[in-house]
């Protein structure tokens, strides 16, 4: 579903990703875990076709990633950015007009679930509610790939819990490939099939969460402490 072939991405002298080759399967939830600045965000943007590799290939759903990849990928940005004069409803209508796979009924359901006021302007919403809205927009689409960049960052535990619940309720876990980039794993450990550890632009390991427990007796947190170099 998602394949990286010797992908390198450089910014100036720094590597955001260095000669990485891996592939992600359909119907799995992946955690892309690593400290800040490890290359998580860039990796996700490359999957979304928003950033292009300096060398190597990124293949999404059999096609080389570019801006058209947006048709196959729902991408939740880490940025708390929005069109200031938009209301919740405007944002919903706009997204529905842009994405052919946008499910209005599900979006309405999600709005109720997240208890978002449709008439409120986005700039009047709390940061937590804007985080919820971003998730509503991503989950309302029927895409083979769902990418979430730091969906929990800066949000309080209540919001985090509602986001986890939203994910569990609306992900199509047989068909969708979900990648969640985060540096906070507490919320999502139970959610993940596999974890990808990334540091300084290098993919250190990809492991199955249950196998880690079964064979090494480690939770993700303990495993990360071992694998990440100090």
């Amino acid at each position, binding site marked *: 579903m998602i394949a990286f072939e010797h992908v390198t991405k450089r910014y100036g002298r720094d590597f955001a990703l260095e000669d990485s080759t891996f592939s992600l399967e359909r119907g799995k939830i992946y955690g892309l875990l690593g400290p800040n600045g490890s290359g998580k965000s860039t990796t996700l943007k490359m999957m979304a076709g928003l950033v292009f590799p300096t060398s190597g290939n990124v293949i999404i759903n059999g096609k080389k990633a570019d801006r058209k990849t947006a048709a196959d990928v729902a991408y939740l940005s880490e940025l708390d950015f929005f069109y200031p004069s938009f209301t919740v409803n405007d944002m919903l209508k706009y997204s529905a007009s842009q994405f052919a796979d946008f499910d209005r009924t599900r979006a309405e359901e999600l709005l109720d679930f997240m208890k978002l006021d449709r008439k409120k302007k986005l700039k009047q919403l709390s940061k937590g509610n804007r985080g919820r809205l971003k998730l509503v927009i991503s989950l309302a689409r029927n895409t083979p790939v769902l990418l979430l960049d730091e969906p929990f960052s800066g949000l309080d535990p209540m919001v985090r819990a509602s986001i986890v619940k939203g994910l569990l309720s609306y992900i199509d876990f047989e068909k969708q490939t979900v990648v969640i980039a985060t540096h906070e794993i507490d919320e999502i450990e139970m959610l993940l099939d596999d974890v990808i550890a990334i540091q300084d632009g290098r993919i250190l390991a990809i492991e199955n969460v249950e196998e880690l*427990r079964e064979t090494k007796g480690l939770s993700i947190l303990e495993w990360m402490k071992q694998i990440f170099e100090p």
Partner: protein
Amino acid sequence: MEEFQASKPIYMQIVDKICQQIVRGDIKSGEKLPSVREMAIQSGVNPNTIQRTYSELERMEIVETRRGQGTFVTEANDRIVELKVKLQRDLIKGFVNNMIDLGFSKEEMLSGLKKYVEEEEI
């Protein structure tokens, strides 16, 4: 959301939890279990993990999946009795192993247990 131990696979921990609920009678024989998705939402766990839990329970013949209807706790009561016995054995085994580790003899173990049960009026 629930807390899980680090050392044991999550799907097995949920298997244990459901077994306990069945033995306690919180879930009756013949009762329908929540769907995989419902269970996933309730426990905040990946649906694939819950799927594995259900497969394991099925393998243990504690639940059965009826096509198009869902997953049900077995109506074979002897199976549930067996499960009860097995859980009891597992607990006793743990208790006995700990006692042996601490150097108690068989008699000390039994008398200690008897005394505790009488004093605490269980």
